[in-house]
């Protein structure tokens, strides 16, 4: 099905020996890369490997320092974002660049709207063409007059893709398009990508998720430390060999889960409710147990965590910690009862990015690093240094600003912050979203270790393999309610997936 052989002579884009340095540090080193019409070319590598910089070079955001770039066979010496767009290169970034207050049609045609004879905006034409584009993307359910702010992430992504196509994109760069999507939306997105490939669009697909790569890609290129490790047809690689190419070593266990005998009940939740997203939920968490929480985006998974942690306190129901009923009205209360929360969005709720690692690590446990009203800086630094070592945070030291760390290391800082509070109950919302394979395995190992030490862990995840691989039990949330509880033995992709998708949810769009 790969038309690569036929078109190999005329790639849409060809990079030869491209390099890029920031402040003297070479982040892309002498990379060759090309995309052919009608192929999905996966770009892989750990965070910091240079993927983002490479796609930004192709998109004209960063000028390259060395090497040559050809688009459609013509050499381009000075590539700007405008020039790249003109030559048919479009990017769907991870953080979607849309205007929430404008409608779908306005977003799709922003900057190149069809005009009427007297140079006014041709609204009927704009709406008609948007409709046609969305239909061609298998999205007849998306209304062109809805404000983008009211759409789900998956639908916004479709709008982004429609926008790229409206500009006659011949090369589409997708930067971790599935990082924020639930399983069902991933399937739909992959269908869209396949459709684009059939039309002859060349797609550069950046992702950490191996199953997607094997499903979609025709060829895969791996970068490590800014250098090209290799470009291979997908048939010539395996999951093991790809991971080895990325991290430069073998990772033997993808999900290092050890069998445990859960201890006494740490947390019991009875008939917990908050608004429409947490409805009458009851479950128990035992010592040493990893409890997976699965559900589609918007099913109420995250809201359950927010309610347990006191960010949106429960309107009714009971929470018992170690058998005693407690009231959790704020994160402070939750912390006092030994509950910790590693949030879904580390930038928003996890970290103060301009602060140092030490300052972030001590933030939830300031009372441990102070004497009277004064901070004990030596103690704070010592604790942060110990956490860096124990968790394996790759940083220059406790004084480094967290904004400079990679996603995986930032996630470890958030985790370190909460481990400093010595919690009994650890809630982790998407613990490995957007972080690379190596760091992911380390976080999983850490979770296993913590559970082994007697902590109870609630893990919310959109990645079914992660839920199945790491959980002792799986709770499935659907439409705010707990619809199924599955033991490790009975939880399979089919059983969990069926419970997640059961009873179709209504969506705003």
């Amino acid at each position, binding site marked *: 099905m790969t038309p690569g052989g036929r078109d190999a002579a005329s790639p849409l884009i060809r990079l030869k020996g491209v390099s890029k340095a920031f402040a003297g540090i070479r982040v892309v080193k002498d990379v060759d890369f090309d995309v052919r019409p009608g192929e999905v070319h996966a770009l892989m590598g750990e965070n910091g490997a240079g993927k983002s910089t490479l796609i930004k070079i192709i998109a004209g955001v960063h000028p390259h320092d060395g090497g040559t770039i050809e688009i459609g066979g013509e050499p381009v010496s000075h590539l700007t974002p405008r020039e790249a767009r003109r030559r048919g290169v479009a990017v769907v970034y991870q953080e979607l660049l849309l205007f929430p207050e404008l409608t779908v049609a306005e977003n799709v045609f922003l900057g190149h709207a069809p005009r009427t004879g007297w140079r006014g905006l041709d609204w009927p034409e704009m709406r008609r063409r948007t409709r046609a584009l969305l239909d061609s993307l298998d999205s007849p359910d998306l209304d062109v007059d809805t404000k983008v702010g009211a759409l789900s992430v998956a639908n916004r992504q479709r709008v982004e893709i429609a926008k790229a196509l409206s500009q006659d994109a011949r090369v589409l760069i997708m930067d971790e398009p599935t990082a924020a999507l639930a399983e069902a939306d991933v399937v739909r997105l992959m269908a869209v990508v396949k459709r684009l490939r059939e039309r002859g669009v060349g797609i550069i697909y950046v992702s950490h998720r191996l199953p997607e790569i094997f499903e979609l890609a025709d060829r895969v290129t791996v970068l490590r430390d800014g250098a090209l490790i290799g470009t291979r047809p997908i048939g010539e690689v395996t999951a093991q060999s790809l991971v080895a190419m990325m991290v430069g070593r073998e990772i033997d266990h993808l999900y290092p889960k050890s069998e445990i005998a859960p201890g006494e009940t740490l947390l019991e939740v009875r008939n917990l409710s908050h608004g429409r997203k947490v409805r009458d939920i009851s479950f128990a968490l035992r010592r040493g147990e990893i409890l997976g929480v699965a559900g589609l985006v918007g099913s109420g998974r995250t809201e359950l965590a927010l309610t347990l942690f006191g960010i949106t306190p429960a309107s009714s129901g009971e929470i018992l910690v170690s058998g005693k009923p407690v009231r959790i009205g704020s994160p402070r209360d939750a912390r006092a009862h030994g509950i910790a929360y590693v949030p879904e969005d580390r930038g928003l709720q996890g970290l*103060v*990015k301009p602060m140092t690692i030490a300052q972030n690590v001590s933030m939830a446990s300031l009372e441990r690093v102070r004497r009277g009203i004064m901070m004990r800086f030596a103690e704070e630094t010592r604790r942060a240094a110990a956490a860096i070592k124990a968790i394996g945070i790759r940083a220059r030291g406790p*004084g480094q600003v967290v904004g400079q760390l990679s996603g995986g290391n930032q996630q470890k800082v958030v985790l370190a912050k909460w481990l400093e509070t010595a919690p009994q109950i650890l809630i982790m919302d998407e613990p490995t979203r957007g972080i690379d394979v190596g760091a992911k395995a380390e976080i999983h190992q850490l979770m296993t270790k913590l559970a082994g030490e007697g902590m109870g862990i609630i893990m919310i995840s959109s990645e079914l393999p992660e839920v199945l691989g790491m959980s002792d039990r799986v709770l499935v949330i659907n439409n705010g309610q707990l619809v199924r509880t599955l033991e490790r033995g009975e939880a399979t992709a089919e059983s969990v997936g069926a419970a997640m998708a059961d009873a179709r949810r209504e969506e705003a769009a």
Partner: protein
Amino acid sequence: MTAEAQTLGRREQSWFGRLFAGYGQEIIILGAILLLFVVVWSINPRFISPNNLNTIFSGNAYIAVAAIGMSMVIITGNIDVSVGALIGVLATIAGTIAVSGYPVWVAWTAPILIGIAVNFLVGVLVAYARIPSIVVTLGMLSILRGGLISVTGGAWISNLPPEFLLAQQRPLGIPAPIYFMVGLTILAAFWMRYSAFGRSIYAVGGNPEAARAAGIPIERRIVQVFMIHGAFAGLATILFATQLQVIQSTVPPNLELTVITASVIGGVSILGGSGTVIGSTLAAILFAAIGSALIFVGISAYWLRAVIGLLILATVLADMARRRQAK
């Protein structure tokens, strides 16, 4: 806090390096002040006459004191545009009490307590009613300014008792306001850097959601910081109102802007989360020195605002650049 703080991470650092780590902006301003003094002194030696130094340091100390509280408010990610009006009102109240025969300590304490009370209200509206601080304080500005003129009709308060005039006292030959400025700055700087409370203020401004999730009571912190700011406004009032034999019961023009500008040029990020009160005090001294220098080198004092405007833009640009680097 941002770019400079990286240097903390490098392995071995001398005590000298550690002492100055995190004070980039402050050192730049200190350098600018010294340079200005040397240049203007070489043009006109009378610039460093005791009389003029008194005007520069003592006459503007109240701005530095008000800027301490303002810096804290800005570090939490808020702002207060009503501080000038508040100081005007508090000065009138203090003067009225002083001429009404109450003991002088009452006249000195009242502005501090009333400043705390007024800003408690502002803080509650900002933190709990979630009205943006710019809106709350714009409202407060109008109320205070309008109320003051309506009540006093713009009359001056004269015949102030001599013992009330704190700013004119000179223990050990140094004007009292200088003790206040230096003492309060050191106290506040120390407290902001070394106390857990100070740390939590930076966290609230740096990322309120993360601070809340970490168990820091951000609403309470914001109210507390506004109250502290009110206390500093009260202290600034005492220095301001006791300089002369009379108190003009009007709002000093542009005072709030001068105070905010001192904070911003002193390195307090207008986006919250970083800056120090040492910087804001140095910046207040820098303006006072520039204003005086313009006169001594024979340039119209109207240029002062233009020069300060340029400084603001340069500082904010530098702050943005630093933030981008830290990303």
